Every structure is written in structure tokens, then in C-alpha cells.
């Protein structure tokens, strides 16, 4: 214990520095996404075989590599065990899995909430700071942001600009009438999720690299990431989980298990206001979908963060 103490003190000293990184896109609140009509034909992104053999093709592939292998390709900007493609399946191509072709053409985006226009580069920086818990994000003109933007641009080839395409985001799954239930959620998790993500949400590795992503704890997304919202996680889960078995859970199961996952601790919201969970809740979480940040669940204050 005595040996551990200075380490703890050191990380506590460090944490304000990490939290103090400039937040490129402060507003991480949700976008509303209607459920697409059945038997719809989704936008089809181009194939890699169509890429030209020049600097553009190479840049697209560089962005692709960053997208599917983020932790290893950009270790200085990834503070947890996640890769972009963990939440954007099929390399950012899959409809209802927040495909890049559904997002890229919607930027620059105006957000009424803070009366601000955000660029796609800032959106990507937000992903690094929140979903990847990466601290200071890559600069807007960095190799990483340029390559990822080029990859997203290429996936959006022939997509209309400023049009909300069906299949974008994670289509909303409305909250069950009786609300969510954490006990039922734990049971769904045990039956359907633990085999890949582990009994304690810790994910699974092969060697040093995560194969199945950690869902909570210090190696997962932080309290500022969009996925921390129960409604967003429920939508993602319903349309994408278990892997390869979309829509196999009921709406209620998706909500229950999303709530179970998102009532576990994870790294602190880097927008932490004056070191106060309550002030941070009021400013960023109180009006952002369904989430438990700053609330007391089963006698425990949620949102204290883990390091």
C-alpha cells in the first residue's frame, strides 16, 4: 500500500491537466434519429477496389487503418482500449451503426444548444476526447484528422450534402413503458454479452490488443461520450448487438442492458466543471437524453470517474 500511495497522488495531480485540454466540441448531446422504414435501400458507400492508386487513395487507406486499428495507429490520442470501429461497425460503412457516410455530409453542423457551428474535424476531435478518452486530441490539420476526414469523405462519395440519410446514427429505440430495470439488465448482460465483453465489462484481449472492447472501467469510453447515454447505448445495442445478430434483443432488453452497462463507473467527463460532478451534471448531463451521471443509484453516486 505504501508503494502505491505516491502513484495515486501522482495521478490525482495529473488529472486536472488531462481535464484541462481544450474541448473542441463541447456539445455532445444527441441527434434524433428516426427508425428507417422497413425494406429500405440504404446508401451504398464505394468499394476499396475503386480507389485510385495515388495520394488520395493512400490517404483514404491511411484513414481506414486509423479507423479500424485506432489504438495502435494513434496511441498518443487513445487513452483507453477502444477503436473507432467498435461502435461504427463494418469499418464505418454499416447502416444504423452510425456510418461515416451518414455523418460526414451533415457537417459543418449548427447546434442550437450552444449556438455554435462545429466542423467535421471538431466532431472527430470530440470522438478522440470522449469516446477514446484521449486527452488532448489531434490538431485539426494533423495527419490523423486529415486521414480520417478523407476516409469519411470517400465513404460519402455521391451522398447528398446536408440530407439526413436513412441509416445514419443509431435509430432511436423508445424507452419501454415501465422504464428500464437494472436487475433484468444484469441478466441480459450475463446471457448475451459477458461471453465477449467479460463478466466485469472488461473486454477481452489477444496479447496486448483488445479484441472485444471494454464496456466500462478505465479502458472504456468516458462520461462525456455519447454512448454513456442509456438511450444511445440502447439504440446501438438494439441495431448492432450481439455482433452479427442485430435486432435479436427486444426494446426492453436493449434498454435494460444499456442501463446496466451505463450505470458502471468509467473515466471522468473531461468537461468536468470546477471539479464538481454536480455542476458537470447540471451543465452537460441534466438535459441530455437518459443518463445517470451525477445521480445516486443503489446508494452510490455515479460519475465519480475511474482512472
Amino acid at each position: 500500500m505504501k508503494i502505491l500511495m505516491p502513484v495515486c497522488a501522482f495521478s490525482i495531480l495529473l488529472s486536472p491537466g488531462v481535464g484541462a485540454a481544450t474541448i473542441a466540441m463541447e456539445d455532445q448531446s444527441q441527434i434524433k434519429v428516426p427508425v428507417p422504414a422497413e425494406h429500405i435501400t440504404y446508401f451504398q458507400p464505394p468499394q476499396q477496389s475503386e480507389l485510385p492508386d495515388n495520394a488520395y487513395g493512400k490517404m483514404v487507406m491511411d484513414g481506414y487503418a486509423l479507423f479500424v486499428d485506432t489504438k495502435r495507429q494513434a496511441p498518443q490520442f487513445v487513452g483507453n482500449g477502444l477503436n473507432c470501429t467498435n461502435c461504427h461497425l463494418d469499418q464505418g460503412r454499416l447502416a444504423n451503426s452510425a456510418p461515416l457516410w451518414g455523418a460526414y455530409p451533415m457537417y459543418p453542423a449548427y447546434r442550437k444548444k450552444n449556438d455554435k457551428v462545429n466542423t467535421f474535424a471538431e466532431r472527430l476531435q470530440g470522438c478522440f476526447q470522449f469516446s477514446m478518452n484521449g486527452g488532448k486530441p489531434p490538431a485539426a490539420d494533423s495527419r490523423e484528422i486529415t486521414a480520417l476526414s478523407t476516409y469519411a469523405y470517400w465513404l460519402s462519395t455521391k451522398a447528398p450534402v446536408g440530407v439526413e440519410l436513412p441509416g445514419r446514427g443509431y435509430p432511436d429505440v423508445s424507452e419501454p413503458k415501465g422504464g428500464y430495470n437494472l436487475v433484468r439488465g444484469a441478466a441480459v448482460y450475463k446471457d448475451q454479452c459477458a461471453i465477449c465483453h467479460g463478466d466485469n465489462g472488461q473486454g477481452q484481449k489477444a496479447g496486448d490488443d483488445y479484441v472485444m472492447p471494454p464496456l466500462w472501467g478505465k479502458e472504456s469510453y468516458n462520461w462525456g461520450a455519447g454512448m454513456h447515454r442509456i438511450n444511445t447505448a440502447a439504440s446501438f445495442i438494439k441495431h448492432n448487438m450481439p455482433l452479427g445478430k442485430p435486432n435479436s434483443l427486444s426494446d426492453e432488453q436493449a434498454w435494460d442492458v444499456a442501463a446496466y452497462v451505463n450505470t458502471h463507473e468509467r473515466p471522468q467527463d473531461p468537461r468536468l466543471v470546477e471539479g464538481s460532478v454536480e455542476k458537470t451534471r447540471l451543465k452537460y448531463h441534466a438535459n441530455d437524453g437518459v443518463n445517470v451521471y451525477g445521480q445516486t443509484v443503489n446508494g452510490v453516486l455515479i460519475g465519480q470517474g475511474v482512472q
Partner: protein
Amino acid sequence: MIPLNRTLLSSVMLLVFSNVQAQPNIYLQGGAQPGATACVACHGADGMGLAPAGFPRLAGISADYLSKQLHDFQSGKRVSPVMQPLAKALTDQEITSVTGTIAAMPAPAVPAINRSRMPASLGETLALRGAWDRQIPECVSCHGPGGVGVGSAFPPLANQPALYLTAQLNAWRDGTRKNDPNDLMGHIAKAMTEDEIKAVADYFATVGHKEVTP
């Protein structure tokens, strides 16, 4: 410190030694009951199987995974005319022992082929990209980079004989193998074509022989 370490070390060694003394090596000698043939006969001294016959590689596979398979052979949840009677001739204790032995056998080196690599064949495309238009995930998203295997539920594909992988995928596809948790593999195999099964089996059978390009 030193005397304590030495004491610990010698007791550990004694423990290991007495274990070896107490239990016969079932992998090499077979079980006590008739019919519990020695594994080495088909799976080889190095546990790498026999590719031309389609006998699978066992070396280095998770003891929990192997134990589940042997118990499934016992109960009929997994079907194999060769393995079922053999597994039935093993006691639970023997299963624990032999799966521990096999898990400790050195696994072949598997190149950490990552998803960022450009696939060069149909098999590699399925392995690294999947076929999401049919909800087929990348094989490596569960079985790990290069198909090295992950945890106790996702066995290695790397260095398994192509014949074995093809037979298993076909068994998942026609429903004769269904001992996977939550039908995770069954529904994928059912979405695959015959050509894809052959291609992906060939890919993983030889993936360990490929040069690693960063």
C-alpha cells in the same frame, strides 16, 4: 527474502513434480478406461493434428474450451463418431488433466495480422472485413488477430487444417454442430457460401505460414 523465495520455489517444484507423479499423461497414454485412446495417435506428438486427415490442432487451446467440447461430445451436444465414444470413456478428472496438458503445449506462432491490412484474397477479406451485407462479422473480431483465438469461448483458427475448418463450418451450416453459445457461430456459417467456407478455411490453415508485414 532469499530463504523464503527458495522455500516457495521448492514447494512449487515439489507440487509440480508430485502432480506429474500422481497423474499419468493421458495425452500420451490414454485414459484408464477402455476406449479412452491416447490423443497423440491422431493429434500428433506436438498437438498440431494431422492436416491430410482433417484431425485438428489442439496444442495451446484453452483448457476450458477443450473441456466444454469433451463434455459436449459426452452428452451428444457435439457429434463425432470418433470423439464421442472416446470422450465418454474419460472421467471428469481425466478431462481436467488432459485439457490442462494440451493447453500447456506450445501454440504455434501466429502473425498478428491486423484489420488495417489490405486483404489479398476472398478468405482474407472475410477474415479481416467480414461480409456485413449478410451480417457476417470479420472472423478476427472474435477469433483475434490472425485467428489466434480469444479467451475460452473463441478457439484459434490459425493453423487448423483446412479440412477440419471446412467440416466444422459445414456442420454449423447444416445444423449438425450447434454447441456454440447463443448460436454465435451457427448463424454466421448459415450465411456463408460454399466458396467462402473453402476460402476462409484455406486462409486460416496457412495464415501461420505467411510472412508478417507490419
